[in-house]
């Protein structure tokens, strides 16, 4: 009921406004057009069903813990990819402690 009242209010105020400014004919034309136009509905062209075995769960860990786990997984995962990059430098000095700002080393 409230939305109806808003609609009437708007129509009347639009009509009143148009009447004052632009004359009677334009006001009537505007009201007729506003009342006859209905918005079209959108129908999807593809299937919108979710995948059959989809289960959405909430991660019980809070975001701080997720960051801790993520960072530690990154560190504990052995760096296989880096071996290829380091191959040409094998004969030179080994990786020093300078690259270990993120590791728990004694300063």
């Amino acid at each position, binding site marked *: *009921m*409230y*939305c109806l*009242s*808003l*609609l009437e209010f*708007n129509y009347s*105020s*639009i009509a009143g*406004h*148009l009447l004052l*400014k*632009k004359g009677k004919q334009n006001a009537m034309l505007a009201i007729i*057009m*506003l009342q006859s*136009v209905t*918005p*079209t509905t*959108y129908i999807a062209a593809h299937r919108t069903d979710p995948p059959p075995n989809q289960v959405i769960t909430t991660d*019980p*860990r*809070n*975001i*701080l*813990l997720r*960051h*801790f*786990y993520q*960072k*530690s997984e990154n*560190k*504990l*995962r*052995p*760096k*296989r990819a*880096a*071996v290829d990059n*380091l191959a040409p430098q*094998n004969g030179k000095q*080994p*990786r020093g*402690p300078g690259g*270990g*700002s*993120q*590791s*728990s*080393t*004694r*300063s």
Partner: protein
Amino acid sequence: MPVASRVPLPASHHRFLTGTRPPSSLSHLTSLLRHSHHSPSGSPCPKIHHHRPQIPSPGLPAAATPAPPAIPQHRTKQARLPRPPADLLSPADELSGARACDAAATAVMAGFFRTGNLTSRVFDRQCFSPRPGATVNTVRQFYENLVPSYTIYDIECPDYSFRKFTDDGKYLVAFSRNHQDLIVYRPIWLTFSCNEECDSHDLPAKAKRFDSFFKQLYSISLASSNEYICKDFFLYVACHQYGLFATSTAQSNDSGASEGAIHGVPSIEKITFHLVRLEDGAILDEKAFRNDFINLAHSIGAYLYEDLLCIVSLRYQTIHILQIRDSGNLVEVRRIGAFCQEDDELYLHSHGQVAQGSSFLPGIKQRLLSFIFRKTWNEEPDQALRVQHLKKKFYFHFQDYVDLIIWKVQFLDRHHLFIKFGSVDGGVSRTTDQNLAFFAVYNMETTEIVSLYQNSSEELYSLFETFYDHFHANPQNSLHGNFISSHANNVHALDQLRTIKNKASSSSQFVKKMMSPLPYTCQSQSPSPYFDLSLFRYDEKLISAADRHRHCTEHPIKFISVKQPNVVKFKIKPGSDAGSSDGRAKRISSFLFHPFFPLALSIQQTYMQATVVNVHFRR
């Protein structure tokens, strides 16, 4: 069928709502209708939803209405009543409409409320809904208007040491001077009646009593003859209204070496934790630790998370996890230290290898060392250099790692602990920032260490800066407890932090200093909205949310409004009205703020003189 009630709107609202510029295009009309579905029936004011952009509905015949104008981009992201197309307005109308539109936008932009006037704010609260999820922050702005500006100096009160208001505001906890009794008050508000003509400027003398504000509920004796209540220790279980107190016998520094105890840590003959139902003073349960040492100052040695309590025994290097049952019993559910899993001890005994002395390192130490080993192992991808790397990083420091002890523990959630490890000499006293320390995240269920950081780690600092609130998030916090200002939830606090960071000479020293409060001390900050940094500015050295004793100054402590930078909203002056004649005596003051009433106590203690208690409230 609900009937729309007619409430006379203030004139300014009328113009704002009905407007001189009605929405004229159908797209805006349909979006307004969509919003109107959410408003409660009976309210004549359309709710203005600040965050929803106006989505033009597709499929309109282009010839019917002129193309809808772009939503005017205000400086805040608020969707407003749209401006009508140009051909419907005369030029003069458009200008005045634009000016009115911008003026209203500026006012709303300055805050949710348009003015500082209390009545106008109440009207605004009727008509506008706050941003989604920001209801408490918005409503808190009323605390700018309701401030504890009136002070009763040197109120006559019993000679107790007042400890704290509970976080739900129902009790005030105090201890007797001989540290053996617990006295609990209920905060009430003053009421008085006058027979003769009351002075409108001042309260009658009979109203200015301690009893007007606090009603004593009971006084019980917690400590027996040779024990003393630890004045600094108090934890509150809000859901059941239980209070946890600690009594201890005198501390003896000559600790005889006993099995499992580490050297360098003093010993206390008996520490007892009492669980008291604050409603009626019934002592529900007690848990005693003998010949042990638990850091009781400021509740550092214990952490409460929902119904789990972790107590760190420094002497035996054990973390006791206790559960507070609904019935009021304290039940030990886990003991982490020598053994991590519950059946470790049984397993080792059954395999007959623990017979001779302590050949095994404690369980948690083993987890720590294995984690460091695996991390160091994975750092070096080259197999040939791996052993060298291990020698340098791990075996060289092996004994130092073994000598680390647990200093402090907190819960991150029900299964994860955040443990601070350090060297023996720094553990007992208030630590300096220079000592080396490690922070570990330990999963109690899998008994694995998830991650380990040094206390100067930039990575941990970045997590600290962004997610600081998760270090003390407690789902059972009272409504106000979740809104304690910190640099993670308040832009002013973040500015202060950034300023300190930019001024810091050494980055690692700065990080160590910032990390020193971690792990967080449970219930150490007052949830009072008067400490909210988005509402008030105050001198953090003189007063802050953390309940610590501070040095007194002669001048009152000013609370300045953030929105109006020159307006002092209220002042807190500890000590007597006339000031103290003796400027040399050492005076310390402490402040107790009620969680949500405009009521505060300031307690000034002077060496060898009487304690002065002031009551600050809103008259």
